[in-house]
């Protein structure tokens, strides 16, 4: 059966690259395996439906809904104003404020595209007005948007947790320090280039201004506190925390800020259902194909082979980083995650690498693909917002990849950066 699966996976990779929708290619590969292997075809729809029959996966549509509600509630102006009051007076203040806003927004939404679309327009407009080159402004906002899925909540972490059987709560906590490091490293980069490019600073509005902008954004700033506080105090599971955060987001939009209208709701709900469908059908098909792979003992064969060939866990992590960075350049984050989890995670576990640390490394690598040509989806969004060509932005983003790659190297080499906080909050496994 291993040989049969290897042949099917070969054909499957070709049709993926030729452009067949990914879920259908995975589903057809699963059907081919069960039928040629003399098994019942009903296994495929059964495994697909069973992939959704899980309470933790319910967190995914609820986090998508929260991102859509907060996006439609137009809270970003308040968050950017608060961030500007804090760090705007530094040289390159608008860029610093842009990065800080993205870090705050990352605690509310769980995807880089949502972060880019949410805060990007406000940040880029402010930077362009202050005299930044449009491509520089767009590059800074794009790089900052990658913090979105690293600081919790995070849609890729929910998908990884469910698919790799890792604790979603631990994954969320594991993202906090790397997310902060990403923000700090980007701010250091701004501090280095600001004097060279003559990036301006804003006038310091004083503590009173900080207090006024904080009051303006205060209710919104409570979102991550409620979400993470509820989850890690043991009050809610991640799924329940997502539901509570949805209701809080509705309160923000309808009651506290009154920026949300009833007529916005159909679009929010349809968008949530569509995004859920796009993501979940991949999880469903990956559930069926993953079952076929485990029956054919592909991971059980590959993992010892990798251990025998590579020997060193560090070398395995280095090789994984290269593979993931390359795959991330050509494939959508969640799709790549679902395809690579059954291959790489068992091998990582065989090397004694914690699946939580490895999850962070996988997500980090694949997220970098969203700000890298040829299919960097965040770059597409930001190029449209900043009104620059994709090619120009693709060149402007390159220096901003350096600090992010350094953080990636740090979390790869030093596990406590990802595993210390989950250990402190949730105890040893």
């Amino acid at each position, binding site marked *: 059966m291993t040989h049969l699966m290897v042949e099917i996976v070969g054909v499957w990779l070709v049709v993926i690259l030729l452009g067949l929708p990914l879920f259908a290619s995975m589903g057809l590969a699963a059907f081919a395996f069960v039928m040629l292997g003399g098994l019942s075809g009903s296994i495929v729809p059964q495994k697909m439906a069973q992939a*959704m029959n899980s309470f933790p996966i319910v967190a995914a*549509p609820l986090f998508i809904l929260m991102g859509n509600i907060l996006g439609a509630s137009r809270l970003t102006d308040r968050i950017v104003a608060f961030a500007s009051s804090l760090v705007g007076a530094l040289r390159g203040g608008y860029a610093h404020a842009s990065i800080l806003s993205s870090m705050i927004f990352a605690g509310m939404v769980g995807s880089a595209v949502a972060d880019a679309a949410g805060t990007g327009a406000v940040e880029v407009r402010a930077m362009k007005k202050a005299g930044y080159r449009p491509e520089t402004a767009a590059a800074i906002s794009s790089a900052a948007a990658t913090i979105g899925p690293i600081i919790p909540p995070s849609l890729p972490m929910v998908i990884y947790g469910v698919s790799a059987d890792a604790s979603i709560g631990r994954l969320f906590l594991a993202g906090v320090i790397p997310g902060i490091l990403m923000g700090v490293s980007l701010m250091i980069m701004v501090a280095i280039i600001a004097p060279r490019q003559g990036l301006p600073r804003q006038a310091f509005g004083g503590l009173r201004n900080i207090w006024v902008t904080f009051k303006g954004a205060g209710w919104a700033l409570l979102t991550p506190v409620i979400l993470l506080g509820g989850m890690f105090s043991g009050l809610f599971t991640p799924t329940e925390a997502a539901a509570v955060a949805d209701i809080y987001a509705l309160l923000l939009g309808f009651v506290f800020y009154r920026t949300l209208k009833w007529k916005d709701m159909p679009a929010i709900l349809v968008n949530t259902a569509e995004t859920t*469908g796009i993501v979940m059908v991949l999880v469903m098909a990956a559930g069926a194909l993953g079952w076929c792979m485990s029956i054919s003992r592909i991971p059980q064969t590959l993992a010892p082979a990798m251990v025998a060939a590579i020997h060193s866990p560090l070398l395995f992590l280095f090789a994984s980083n290269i593979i993931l960075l390359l795959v991330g350049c050509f494939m959508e984050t969640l799709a790549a995650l679902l395809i690579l989890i059954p291959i790489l995670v068992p091998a990582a576990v065989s090397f004694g690498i914690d699946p939580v640390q490895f999850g962070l490394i996988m997500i980090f690598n694949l997220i970098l693909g969203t700000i890298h040509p040829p299919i960097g989806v965040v770059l597409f969004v930001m190029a449209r917002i900043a009104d620059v060509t994709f090619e120009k932005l693709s060149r402007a983003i390159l220096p901003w990849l350096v600090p992010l790659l350094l953080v990636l190297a740090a979390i790869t080499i030093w596990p406590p950066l990802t595993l210390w906080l989950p250990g402190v909050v949730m105890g040893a496994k």
Partner: protein
Amino acid sequence: MLHSLLRGFDRAAAIVACMLVVVLLGCVALGVVSRGLGAPFIWTDELSRFLMVWLAVAGWILASRKRIHVRIRYLQDKLPPRLHAMVETNFQVALTIFGLLITWYSVGLVAKNLDLEATSLPLSMAWMYVPMVLAGVVMAMQGAVEVVESIRRSHSGTAPQ
């Protein structure tokens, strides 16, 4: 006629999907509230899992109708127009076959699970697989229509949309 039927179907699918999102949120929230009040409902977890299957499939159908599923078009877009159209037609055939297979085997699953009851709900487990039948039918029909359209286009010499 066909277009107005399709518009009606899309509208109905969108309304059902929206309702599923709202009910799912309500169900999970009810679980939290009932536990907070010291009288937890035992059925909210299981109902949310049923709703999750339905929502995922409703979203799958919506995304299929709008043709917004994830696919890597990088290589296909580099093909000459004729070859591009030919590859696309073959993909629609593959989608039709996938839809038919899903429909056929999901009907079998529904039949097999009719007598099985959920743990905490007076619901047949067959309801877990009913949406798979719907998704299969929609996918097979859409794939078949697109195959016919692309063949018609290639005969009349018009470019694909």
